[in-house]
């Protein structure tokens, strides 16, 4: 029944045709009969009647066009015909569809990645468009930091336009179930977390209001679906059972739904605990009542109909009030609401520049693919010119022909769209490869929702405009009389269509050039970063970490353990030295920052002098290879009973002591005075791109931490040392396991990841683009040669030397390539600035990158020209003239 309804217009259409046909036949025959009666011979009468009637086909077409929804029938018939045409030349169709699939698929994949990591980063979370990141700001300081718990509560109380403030902080723990221990990552959240995000646990409940209040008052946990399956085998009676987390039994109150991975781009959370448990999970102390302790990376959910500007205004007003009420902690402090994709707190920050560039790159690839298909269509149009002229001769208008040709393009693009979406589907997990391995499951995935599908469909339509329009316009512009005659074969490169095809090649060469230059610049940046000095040794130092907090140690026990372990490690064969640092340079753990004061340093109004610092053991400087330029090192004597001391870096000495030697001077940190005993050379602390900034060190013994990084200077490789380290740790306590062992080089490499990934993408796509362009160039040249066989044969017959023919053909190719490269050069000069800070110590106009792109393109395109030219040279004049 359904099928009949769908097909009826087609049948009706046949009936309509028949009835027009019959009506017109009746007319002509009646007329002929009348003419015959008036005395004309029968044959003559028939002929005259037909002439008087005029062009039957044209009028039939006009009659059909009066029908409603005629365009639907016309479109269906074009579609039908288009598919038949594509089936008839499978080679062409496959090639065109392949090119377009690459172009559309690359775009769809990148759209999916952007949607999945930047715009809709949290699966299952409802209405992510009304969700904004809560980022703390400090006046006069670039960048964002966290928020304190008391501030968050005040904001929640006073902001009427904001539905909820959600607190969250990434935490780690060691899960031991039975005899297996495993590291797990989770999140410390406010009690409204699940409700505000619209997540309903599949089992049990989320957190109840008030469960985030009171110091360590509510040891409850919601576990992820994956953890429930893996560790508890989907046991429904798990609710109400207890699980040890950081050596405290927590009651399992809920299981999160399948497919909910939490709210952190890059990680899949395995558990959630309420904020009241902060002290248990955070090595740096109790912070729920400390307005100066900023540790929350939260979200806000706007009320319906509230714009982010309105919310921002309200929140700024509250922040000003807090600044007035609590000047010592909140001076210069504000809050900025950022869209999810600008979140400074998770991997989206690293993805943003890469994805920006990748978007541009895949668009280039699309254009190049379209140029190739355009060329293919032009070639095929030439082969089809007879069919097209016949259609025109029997009355099809130019508009009708364009419609027909564009419908065929639509068929191509639609098939490619399906293929492209499949490509995107396969590629959606590729992003995970971009993140370095880390503790805990990684979640980073492309999302193919309706927005991505719609955008991909739009890209396919754009591609039709790009590849289909020019051939359609060009092809429909036929001169019937000359086309119906045998096409005369012209001289190489003088026909308009051939010029058009050369222009397309030009575009491809130019775009490939830009992509190759971009790839070169980024890969060179990676090289430069690798080879530049971070201010400490890159070789011979291994890094690991030990978290005693997760194992339930208090500070005193942790201190003893650390002392004992360091002695054992230093005694190992092949170990030159070993040291602790609370934060290892370039790691994901962030440095603490503290307000500082220095005698005689004039503080500008609104300035809150502060500096990042690290707590280290005495051998830190010698192990990592950071030289001291003045004063003395920490010693074992600098412990909790000795007067507090600090070592500052050169930048800090320059800023606060105006370059005078600060050794022996006083430094106030968080209200506590300490003596500066040494000056260390500047180093890089978080990443290679940072500029020197004030930084200081304090002895770990005076500022204990249960969670430390361990640095080992040794000539052995990580694989050899890791089991030895684990053995030493286990000997002290079988329940503690060290983190994985990395070399400093590996640690640094994680920082160049963005450049590496962007460079790799550009390299792959640039290579792909070059391949497409080379194929296109080869096609154009071969075609030109095959079309001018007669001319070439004639030239040979008239005495042209083969080398002359070679030069003739090559010169045409070289002209196109040369112009293309020149255009690409200009375009690259203008666009490489877009890389911005991704370029490290490399000028956007770096001659090496431009030079290598030039060499590669020239070599590839010359090869593409040479083969056809070689064939031209061997033209057999006899055969050419006879054919």
């Amino acid at each position: 029944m359904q099928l009949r309804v769908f097909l009826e217009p087609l049948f009706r259409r046949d009936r309509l045709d028949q009835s027009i046909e019959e009506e017109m036949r009746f007319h002509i025959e009646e007329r002929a009969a009348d003419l015959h009666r008036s005395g004309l011979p029968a044959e003559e009468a028939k002929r005259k009647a037909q002439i008087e009637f005029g062009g039957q086909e044209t009028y039939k077409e006009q009659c059909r066009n009066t029908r409603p929804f005629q365009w639907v029938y016309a479109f269906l018939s074009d579609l039908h015909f288009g598919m038949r045409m594509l089936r008839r030349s499978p080679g062409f169709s496959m090639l065109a569809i392949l090119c377009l699939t690459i172009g559309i698929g690359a775009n769809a994949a990148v759209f999916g990645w952007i949607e999945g990591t930047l715009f809709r980063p949290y699966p299952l979370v409802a209405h992510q468009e009304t969700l904004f990141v809560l980022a703390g700001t400090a006046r006069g300081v670039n960048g964002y930091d966290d928020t304190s718990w008391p501030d968050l509560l005040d904001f929640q109380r006073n902001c009427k336009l904001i539905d909820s403030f959600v607190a969250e902080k990434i935490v780690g723990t060691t899960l031991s179930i039975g005899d297996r221990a495993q590291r797990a990552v989770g999140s410390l959240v406010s009690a409204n977390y699940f409700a505000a995000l619209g997540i309903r646990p599949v089992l049990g409940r989320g957190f109840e209001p008030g469960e985030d209040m009171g110091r360590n008052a509510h040891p409850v946990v919601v576990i992820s679906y994956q953890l429930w399956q893996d560790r508890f085998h989907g046991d429904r009676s798990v609710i109400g059972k207890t699980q040890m987390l950081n050596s405290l039994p927590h009651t399992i109150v809920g299981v999160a739904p399948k497919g909910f991975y939490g709210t952190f781009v890059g990680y899949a959370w395995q558990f959630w605990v309420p904020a009241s448990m902060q002290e248990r999970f955070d090595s740096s102390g109790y912070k729920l009542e400390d307005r100066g302790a900023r540790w929350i990376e939260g979200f806000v959910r706007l009320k319906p109909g509230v714009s982010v500007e309105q919310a921002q205004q309200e929140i700024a007003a509250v922040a000003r009030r807090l600044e007035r009420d609590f000047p010592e902690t909140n001076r210069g402090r504000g809050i900025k609401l950022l869209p999810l994709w600008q979140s400074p707190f998770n991997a989206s920050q690293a993805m943003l520049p890469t994805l920006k560039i990748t978007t541009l790159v895949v668009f280039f690839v699309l254009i190049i693919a379209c140029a190739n298909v355009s060329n293919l269509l032009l070639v095929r149009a030439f082969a089809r010119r007879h069919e097209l002229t016949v259609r025109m001769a029997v009355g099809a208008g130019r508009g009708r022909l364009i419609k027909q040709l564009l419908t065929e393009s639509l068929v191509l693009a639609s098939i490619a769209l399906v293929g492209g979406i499949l490509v995107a589907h396969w590629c959606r997990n590729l992003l995970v490869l971009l993140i370095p391995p880390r503790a805990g499951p990684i979640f980073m995935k492309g999302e193919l929702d309706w927005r991505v599908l719609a955008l991909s469909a739009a890209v396919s339509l754009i591609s039709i405009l790009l590849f289909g329009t020019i051939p359609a316009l060009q092809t429909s512009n036929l001169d019937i009389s000359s086309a119906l005659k045998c096409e005369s074969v012209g001289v190489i490169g003088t026909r308009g269509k051939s010029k058009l095809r050369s222009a397309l090649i030009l575009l491809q060469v130019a775009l490939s050039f830009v992509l190759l230059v971009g790839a070169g610049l980024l890969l060179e940046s990676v090289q430069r970063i690798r080879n530049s000095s971070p201010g400490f040794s890159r070789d011979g130092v291994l890094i690991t970490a030990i978290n005693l907090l997760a194992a339930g140690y208090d500070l005193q026990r942790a201190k003893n353990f650390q002392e004992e372990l360091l002695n054992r490690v230093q005694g190992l064969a092949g170990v030159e030295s070993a040291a602790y640092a609370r934060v290892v340079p370039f790691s994901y753990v962030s440095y603490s920052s503290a307000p500082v004061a220095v005698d005689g340093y004039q503080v500008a109004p609104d300035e809150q002098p502060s500096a990042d610092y690290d707590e280290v053991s005495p051998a830190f400087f010698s192990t990592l290879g950071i030289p001291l330029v003045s004063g003395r090192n920490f010693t074992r004597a600098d412990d909790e009973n000795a007067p507090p001391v600090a070592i500052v870096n050169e930048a800090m000495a320059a800023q606060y002591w105006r370059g005078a030697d600060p050794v022996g001077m006083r430094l106030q940190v968080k209200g506590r005075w300490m003596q500066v005993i040494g000056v260390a050379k500047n180093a890089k602390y978080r990443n290679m791109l940072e500029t020197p900034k004030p930084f200081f060190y304090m002895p770990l013994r005076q500022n204990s931490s249960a969670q430390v990084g361990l640095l080992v200077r040794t000539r052995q490789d990580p694989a050899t040392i890791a089991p030895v380290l684990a053995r030493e740790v286990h000997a002290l306590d079988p329940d503690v396991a060290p983190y994985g062992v990395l070399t400093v080089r590996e640690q640094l490499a994680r920082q160049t990841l963005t450049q590496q990934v962007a460079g790799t993408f550009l390299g792959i796509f640039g290579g792909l683009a070059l391949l497409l362009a080379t194929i296109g160039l080869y096609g154009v040249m071969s075609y030109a040669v095959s079309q001018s066989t007669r001319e070439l044969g004639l030239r040979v017959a008239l005495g042209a030397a083969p080398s002359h023919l070679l030069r003739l053909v090559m010169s045409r190719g070289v002209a196109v390539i040369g112009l293309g490269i020149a255009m690409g050069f200009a375009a690259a000069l203008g666009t490489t600035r877009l890389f911005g800070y991704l370029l490290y110590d490399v000028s956007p106009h770096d001659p090496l990158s431009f030079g290598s792109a030039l060499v590669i393109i020239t070599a590839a395109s010359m090869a593409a020209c040479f083969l056809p030219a070689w064939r031209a040279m061997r033209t057999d004049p006899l055969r050419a003239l006879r054919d």
Partner: protein
Amino acid sequence: MANTADILPGTLDMLILKALSLGSLHGYGVLLRIQQISAGAFEVEQGALYPALYRLEQRGMLTAKWGLSENNRRAKYYGLTHRGEKHLRQQTENWNRLTLAIATVLNAGAEET
């Protein structure tokens, strides 16, 4: 041979409606009737009649049904609908007003010079 473009736009539609106002006809019959009532003043390419007939049918001015011709052949007969009659009346009035106005203007000019 005159082309549809040579007669005033819209005139062909009016001629067809007028021809059919005297009774149903098949396509060829419409042509003969037009030739007859216009005394050959309006010559159109005969095929051009059909798109016009289809258009008018589509606009609800004509009905079409198959019947038998004088010599017992199957033919499609067109007839005026109520809407077609109204349209013809209106068009006739408009036309008369227009020609009267133009005639008045032209005659007035002639008298003054």
